[in-house]
């Protein structure tokens, strides 16, 4: 089923949309959740949370590209769960109190920090676009999908070492690129 039909189903509040979402994007969602979380139990929960979040977000949202939209939600949810799990592992009273108080505090996002974040995003986007398609895919596979070298090597028909070498070069270039544009690292 194409994206438009799935979105139509979501707008019609048809639960078939969830099934279709899972059929079409399930593997990608599972992969990114697994890459971030590292265990199947959390991955399964995170995937389900993703479909629920998509269900809640569409409507009113109507994304042009459903795949990146769904994957971004999955990625964000997985990262949040990692943060939650990490905090849970720390589990000392100080951290618990801190997290309780965190909800009472106003957002620490200022106009400046938001601007800075947008600038960083633009810089990163231009850097990614400056890479050739091969390196771009490699970079995104690693730092967007969190694929490991072995998976990337398999996907791109390279050796693991080759992937690591290329990634090392890209990181060096990124550092230089960010430094030249005044991004403090």
């Amino acid at each position, binding site marked *: 089923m194409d994206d438009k039909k799935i979105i139509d189903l979501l707008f019609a509040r048809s639960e078939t949309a969830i099934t279709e979402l899972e059929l079409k994007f399930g593997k990608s969602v599972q992969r990114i959740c697994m890459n971030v979380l590292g265990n199947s139990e959390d991955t399964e929960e995170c995937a389900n949370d993703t479909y629920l979040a998509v269900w809640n977000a569409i409507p009113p949202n109507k994304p042009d590209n459903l795949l990146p939209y769904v994957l971004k939600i999955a990625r964000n949810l997985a990262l949040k769960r990692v943060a939650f799990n990490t905090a849970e592992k720390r589990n000392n009273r100080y951290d618990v109190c801190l997290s309780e108080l965190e909800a009472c505090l106003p957002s620490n996002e200022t106009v400046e920090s938001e601007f800075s974040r947008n600038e960083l995003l633009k810089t990163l986007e231009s850097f990614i676009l400056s890479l050739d398609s*091969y390196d771009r895919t490699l970079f995104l596979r690693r730092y967007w999908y969190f694929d490991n070298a072995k998976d990337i090597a398999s*996907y791109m028909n390279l050796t693991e070492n080759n992937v690591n*070498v290329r990634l090392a*070069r890209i990181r060096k270039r990124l550092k230089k690129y*960010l430094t030249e544009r005044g991004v403090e690292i």
Partner: protein
Amino acid sequence: MKPEDILDAIGDIDDSILLQAEMPIRRRNYKGLITIGIAAAILICVSILPLALLRGEAPDEPPKIPEGIFDREDNPSVLLPAPSDSDDNDSSFAANEDESVNQESSEESAEDIEISSEENSKEITEEPFEESSTEEPSFEDPSTEDPSTEDPSVEGDISSGDSVNDTVPYDGPIYIVYDEYENDPYEDPDEIPPNYVGTLDAEKSESLDMILLSLQTADNRVYSVSDSVSNVWDVLRSLGYNNKYIFQFESTDRKHSYQIYEHDSDGTYILRKFNLLYRVTLEEMADIRELIKHLE
């Protein structure tokens, strides 16, 4: 700025960029190798077969060349040394002649059989380089050359495709040979500090992705591979070799530098030794080999 900020920002990149990572991947280099291999095979067939027929010695079967790789064993005519009875005044040929004095007569006769294919084999090994023998042969005008580089025993240089290893067998490990001059930090060999060790920066590392001129193995096989360093590394691995390299970069003024790199375990290339040579003589090649032995 923390790494989390970057990862976080990457998470918000534009959808159109993200979609590109989902597109099918095309392995870009082997097609070029296959093309080169096929072109070389055709060239060899077209040039060697008529010559052999003229001599009344038609080969049993056409040379077999694997994808993009010129294998000396399969295609012995590709890398033959210059003919010792050449009529021209090429000093590198003369040097070859000198060096070949000590060779066994059986080798000479074997060379004679293939002398007529010399021009063609040079052309093939030099194929990736524009400023190779079409503009000038593998020697410079002695009157314009740096006096310090003049050497009557000058051997054909590696970048021009002449096989130094043909006359000086080398039984060490495999090396990739590149040639570079433009980006050398030291233009004067005397400026190079002893035990110079440097690390490649990103741009330098990128420049390693230039065309690979040739790849020499211990058993004198020379492969002509047009590929990036990282993919050449795959080739090396497939041959069962690891870790040690010499890179020779293409130069425009026939000055060459040779740099030995070790492929580090963390995925970086470390410059182990820097050695600037204006021409590759047999003596200098011996120096390089000594250097390699020390590094090992």
